């Protein structure tokens, strides 16, 4: 009897369909998760070990938190952190608000809107940045066009829009790139929404504005939240755009990390790695906070009713 049961279960082991669903799910996820874990997690662990001096670059392996001390006392850390946060907030906020408006305007338009929104998706950020440089830099297309039209006398007369202290170029680039992305998501949300909810609201006495505020917007909320979360976390940790288009000082946190990492003084490497880990930590903390806050607001929305 015992032999028979063990034989059966050994047979079951090779019968994929008899595995419990959760086990199959985990096994199927393993290649993808393993890859991410190995590359991302492995890198993170190596970086951690470097930052606390367990793996040395110059051969000296003395465990210490000195790199973190140096990183936290970095003179630019506060301003860089603020700049990264400010850029991510403003770009996400503006593109979300504009996208909501655009999506509402285009919701009943044809399929071309979806295609139009997808045009910028495959264009790499670097290409966008190059475009903005060609277009808006002091010797760029816009300046030359205005000069040819005789509207300005010299290229000094155009407002500085790239590498400027206000980071207009960075914001412009992110708006150009993220508005179509968020609009695309919100269009899908709106088109998937039953239009009768809005009909119902109007018939019950809601004017178009009340209908938008009390019905359409709350029903779009999950889509808005996830789209803006993706955009925010991308912009916050984005390196190449502020590096090429941003102000020279202060610099965003990712640029600061890059500068420290490429410093000729290899002794500063642990500090650079520590800065990078601080950036990752803040990024994750912001995401966790954002998710926590929005989950709560989603719950309390029902209790409050007014927004």
């Amino acid at each position: 009897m015992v032999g028979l049961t063990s034989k059966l279960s050994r047979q079951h082991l090779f019968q994929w369909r008899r595995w419990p669903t959760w086990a199959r799910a985990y096994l199927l996820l393993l290649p993808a998760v393993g890859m991410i874990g190995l590359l991302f997690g492995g890198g993170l662990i190596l970086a951690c070990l470097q930052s606390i001096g367990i793996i040395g670059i110059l051969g000296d392996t003395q465990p210490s938190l000195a790199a973190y001390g140096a990183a936290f006392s970095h003179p630019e850390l506060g301003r860089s952190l603020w700049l990264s946060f400010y850029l991510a907030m403003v770009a996400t906020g503006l593109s979300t608000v504009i996208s909501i408006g655009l999506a509402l305007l285009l919701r009943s338009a044809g399929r071309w809107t979806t295609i139009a929104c997808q045009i910028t998706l495959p264009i790499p950020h670097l290409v966008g940045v190059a475009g903005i440089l060609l277009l808006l830099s002091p010797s760029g297309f816009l300046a030359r066009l205005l000069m040819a039209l005789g509207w300005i006398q010299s290229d000094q007369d155009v407002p500085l829009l790239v590498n400027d202290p206000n980071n207009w170029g960075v914001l412009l680039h992110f708006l150009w790139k993220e508005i179509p992305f968020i609009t695309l998501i919100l269009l899908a949300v709106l088109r998937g929404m039953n239009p009768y909810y809005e009909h119902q609201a109007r018939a019950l006495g809601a004017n178009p504005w009340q209908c938008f505020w009390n019905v359409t917007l709350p029903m779009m909320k999950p889509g808005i939240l996830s789209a803006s979360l993706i955009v925010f976390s991308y912009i916050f940790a984005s390196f190449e755009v502020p590096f090429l288009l941003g102000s020279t000082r202060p610099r965003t946190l990712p640029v600061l990390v890059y500068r420290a990492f490429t410093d000729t003084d290899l002794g500063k490497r642990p500090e650079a790695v520590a800065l990078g880990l601080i950036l990752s930590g803040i990024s994750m903390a912001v995401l966790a906070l954002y998710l926590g806050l929005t989950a709560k607001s989603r719950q309390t929305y029902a209790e409050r009713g007014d927004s």
Partner: protein
Amino acid sequence: MDYLVVEHLTKQFQGHVAVHDLWLTMAQGEVLALLGPSGCGKSTTLQLVAGLLHPDAGAIYLEGRPMNHVPPERRDMALVLQRGLLFPHLTVGENVAFGLKMRGMNRVDRDKEAIAMLHRVQLQGFEHRRPSELSGGQAQRVALARSLVIGPKLLLLDEPLSALDANLREEMQDLILSLQAQTQVTMLIVTHDQAEATVMAQRIALMFDGQLRQVDAPERLYRYPCDEATARFMGGVNFFTVQAEQHQWHLPSGQHLTSSLAHQGPLRVTLRPEALRLYTDAAHLPDVPGNCLQGEAIANRFTGTQRRITVAIAPNLTLQVWGSPTQDIALGQSVWVYIPADALWGLPGEPCPPVAMPSPAVQS
């Protein structure tokens, strides 16, 4: 005098005529059912009345006030749609209070009214639930409460019960009718179900292909349909042609029937199956000359509440009769069908013209 007046209403969608030259009037407090097969334009009509669509031509008046340029939120109408369509991000109480909030009523008062209204639809204590926690019937009650709480001048219901199962539907019909009796709200119900229209409405407006075919009390629609399509939609199954000589109507097979109606010449005739009586024994036939036809039972369907028995009278004449569920009849058995003289109804030869002028509304 007329509370709601719809004149000459026309709506097209990309060349397809959804509603064509529709005329309709309703009295205050009346319950009218807009009945028709799917795609006949009845929901479009409802949306035009509610102001959610703009007519290509025609006018709508409520209490004598033209409505064409009044936005839906200022028409004082309310809508109940299939499946309730409660706002998923609001609680049941907030759903019911929605219309009051839009009218600027303060929180305390509108909560109080919402709770009172929930009580009237027998959902006391449900105000903090989420719409996702409700059954289909409960959701539909909340939708009803949400519409009635604003005291609409006209309550529009679009297939309100078609997503519910049969027992629940009857319960909801009773609830809607009792609330209507209490509030005296004027109700326009769109439905494709003739049984539902018959139970709920004081008058039925039957609609085919964007046009009203007949507007009448349910019983009249059953007994006196204006054409064959109307009769078939109302469940008519027996149709044949006779040669009428006043009250004597001759069948092609040579037999003749006595009708209480007088007519001269060929006539298309319909008979409600429930008006006929079936006899298995010639000795028990009523003593009426002519109106008993002998035939052979060729089908016998048990429906639970009755038997649908098909009797072949002549090569080109079969009649369906509703028999008692306990009356078992063998196929091939010889039976007699008794046709009361007042059960015969003659149809005009052609489809009746669309209702082009307002017919007088029934006062409730």
